[in-house]
């Protein structure tokens, strides 16, 4: 039985493409009462910001961090792929 993991390259390419089209990072979660006041929680981007209606603070933390987390995870996948094929 093989332990080799088969990656869905098509899906990974779609993730890379979506990442490429996002606004310049890093993105920062500005949470009211934590690192921001006199305004609703929002996301700061490399060139401005994003205001959201209906998002919880946890949603905002997730979205802001995803801008840095996705490239990190893709790089880790590449590293592990190279390791397992090497």
């Amino acid at each position, binding site marked *: 039985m093989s332990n080799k993991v088969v990656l869905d390259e098509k899906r990974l390419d779609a993730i890379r493409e979506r990442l490429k089209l996002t606004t310049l990072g890093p993105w920062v979660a500005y949470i*009211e009462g934590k690192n921001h006041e*006199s*305004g609703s929680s929002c996301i700061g981007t490399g060139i401005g*910001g994003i205001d959201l*209606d209906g998002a919880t603070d946890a949603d905002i933390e997730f979205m802001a961090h995803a801008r840095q987390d996705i490239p990190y995870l893709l790089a880790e996948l590449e590293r592990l792929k190279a390791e397992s094929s090497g």
Partner: protein
Amino acid sequence: MQQHQAQILNDRHYMVAGVFSALGAGVGDTIGGGGEPEEEAAIAGRLPDSALVCRGGLCTADRFANGTGVTLDAAGNLQGVSVQSAAGKTVQELTVGVKNPKVGVTTVGDIRRAGGDVVPSGTPGNPDHCTMCGITPEKAEELFTPVQPNPNR
């Protein structure tokens, strides 16, 4: 001492006069009427009716009601809404530390006429911080929208 107080009052008078001039109103008028005279507000340490009030974000009723530290009293009015306000300051000056790309703007007078108030609660790091209370989330949305781009973002 009295001379010093008179100078402060005079300075504030000119600051307030500048705002009124910019709005096309006469010195000594109150915007929309019904508020207390500007000089009396200054002496009492209260914000004048003409002071701008800013809050970052989309300023929908839901965003007001779910703001950090915000509660609704028995009458359904907001308590503890974090805002920026100071006599004679512009939107750009008030929103320097606000991270949101959009800001809602109204005046202390409009909030008072709706039954609410804005009370200074400045800190060393944010001297223009204030707390708004006494109006419903829906009224707050009505007063603070449409929102405008944050001139500092």
